[in-house]
């Protein structure tokens, strides 16, 4: 809006350059500066808060500033949970998180992208399509615990997967599929229709057009959206607790049907223990979770820069 105003102002000043008082212009410039300062303040405030929180967590986990105990040790990665803080580690939770998230990607990504392609390129614009579209948008806003309840009944009980990694990953996949669909559709829609027309003009079929023209052009946006959706799933606790992911798991899963735990559950459990040292362990867990999350987000940025095309 301000950009439009500025344009308008420019056009006016060209025409009525002489009539306008320069004091008025100064006042406008001043107002513009106020907005800039406010914007800066908002950014600094938001990022500053985040920085303080992260530094606090880093300090609690490693004792790097206040000279406390360093909890982010090799034992932390290589030990299972224990009632003694010095022996407790997050091995089961770290592996559980990595397994679950990998499976979630494998389930959700193909499904979400395929649905987006269908809705954008194939579906006729009728009441059924509109119904599906509305429902997908609504699903993207449903609280995650609802997916947990759904997963508990469908995957844990009906399919008899038990409280397994498979059931957990399927539940998380349900959670992120609507977000992937919405993001992928945006990206597919951004492909100029002139490219499609050109493809058709060369005699390509609809599928050939999708495969050789639309997907290559939109893959950057699709990957970014999907990875961001998955990084949301990493931090989810509620649906996994609902389907019955366990808290104390002193072993690594051997197959898809084994019980598991994930980092958010482990962190939550540690914060509620009586001994204060477990809070430091929780901070260490938060750091590991943050690292996994930021790595995945960095991958998203890399892929976007690599494959995104501009027109």
């Amino acid at each position, binding site marked *: 809006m301000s950009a439009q105003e500025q344009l308008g102002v420019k056009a006016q000043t060209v025409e009525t350059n002489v009539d306008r008082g320069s004091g008025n212009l100064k006042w406008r410039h001043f107002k513009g500066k106020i907005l800039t300062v406010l914007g800066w303040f908002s950014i600094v405030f938001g990022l500053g808060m985040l920085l303080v929180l992260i530094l606090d967590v880093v300090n609690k986990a490693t004792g790097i500033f206040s000279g406390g105990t360093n909890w982010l040790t090799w034992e932390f990665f290589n030990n*299972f*949970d*224990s*009632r*003694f803080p010095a022996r407790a580690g997050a091995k089961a939770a770290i592996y559980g998180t990595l397994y679950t998230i990998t*499976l979630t*990607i*494998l*389930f959700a*990504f*193909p499904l979400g*992208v395929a649905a987006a392609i269908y809705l954008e390129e194939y579906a006729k614009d009728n009441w059924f399509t509109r119904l599906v579209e509305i429902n997908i948008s609504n699903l993207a806003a449903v609280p995650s615990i609802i997916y947990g309840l759904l997963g508990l009944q469908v995957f844990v009980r009906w399919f*008899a*997967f*038990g*409280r*397994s990694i*498979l059931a957990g990953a399927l539940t998380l996949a349900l959670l992120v599929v609507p977000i992937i669909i919405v993001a992928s559709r945006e990206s597919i829609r951004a492909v100029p229709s002139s490219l499609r027309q050109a493809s058709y003009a060369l005699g390509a079929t609809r599928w050939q057009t999708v495969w050789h023209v639309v*997907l*290559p052009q939109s*893959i950057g946006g699709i990957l970014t959206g999907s990875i961001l959706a998955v990084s949301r799933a990493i931090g989810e606790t509620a649906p996994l607790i609902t389907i*019955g*992911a*366990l*808290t*104390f*798991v*002193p*072993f690594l899963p051997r*197959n*898809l*049907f*084994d*019980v598991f735990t994930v980092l958010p559950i482990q962190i939550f*459990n540690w*914060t*509620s*223990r*009586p*001994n*204060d040292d477990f*809070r430091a362990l929780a901070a260490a867990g938060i750091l590991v979770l943050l690292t996994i999350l930021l790595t995945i987000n960095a991958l998203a940025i890399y892929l976007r820069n*690599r*494959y995104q095309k501009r027109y």
Partner: protein
Amino acid sequence: MVGNAKRWIYGLMLMALLIPMIAACGGQQQAQPTATTAPAAQATAAPASTEAAPAPTTPPASELASLRGDILIDGSSTVFPVIAAAAEEFSALAPNVRVSVGISGTGGGFKKFCNGETDISNASRPIRTSELEACKANGIEFIELPIAYDGLSVVVNPQNDWVTCLTVEELKKMWEPDAQGVVTNWNQIRDGFPNRPLTLLGPGTDSGTFDYFTEAIMGKAKASRGDFQASEDDNVILIGVAGDVNALGYFGYAYVIENQGRVKPVAIDGGKGCVEPSFETIANGTYTPLSRPLFIYVRKEAAERPEVQAFVNYVFGEEFTAEIQTPEIGYVALSKELYAAIAKRFNDRVLGTLVKEGEEVGLTLDRYLGK
């Protein structure tokens, strides 16, 4: 260059499409033996029990090491520290037995247990009639085993110099539903208490601790005023009381041991004088009415499996029960005599509960000593 990258991406996408299908197909075959733990466990139990007859006591180390199987435990967050510690120690003795413990609350645990989804259910109160019926409807039978005492501790700020002891009547005055919005000052509790605002903190309404406290103090489970700061996380209550001179809260005794100096436990007068919570007073039953027994419930079919027998016998053996009173667990152990009787109760497969609904407060465990 670009073409290569494209092919690579498509290859990945195709793999992403195919792998779930393969996983699903492979999974279908595997699902039969391992998907639901209950039938799977039974399947493994059958051949194992023929080669090694179920031992009545903790088997020797060599035998423990050869055991394998999964034990699925869920239920109360209060019992969690005891059973997780037992699982931790047991896994060192029997590395091939995989014991996992979840937290669903006592009620949530019984729902899964009576659905046949878990082998052992942790409970911070005895099973209720409605839960008994749910179990019966699904043909689930169980062995009820008390495992430790927990003392609910009423705590105040260490700088609070006017409270050292409270009667049950005074606690009721603070917490009863009618107190809501009315009792807001310490001087309303007892003549002589200072004119200071009263800040109350306690566990949320889903917790078994809340159920027990209200039952013991108000005489009716879940009867409590609503205008107190509720949290499912006991550390929130701890921090709240540690930071406010006028605050009063309650939680398990384990938090008092681990945080000595940060909060001050209040002695409770249940009609026979003031008694402070301690390992002794909780164990010998003088700290009434706020001490309670904790239970585990073992499913009858699960109790036929050698790895479950070994685990339960380990839990009630002398080696582990000596650990229960250490600060890392923080509960109060039962007498040796009781543990022996309870282990016998398990090994004799005595089914059913010994506690009727309504008997929970002031429950003594003499009845588990045998006839």
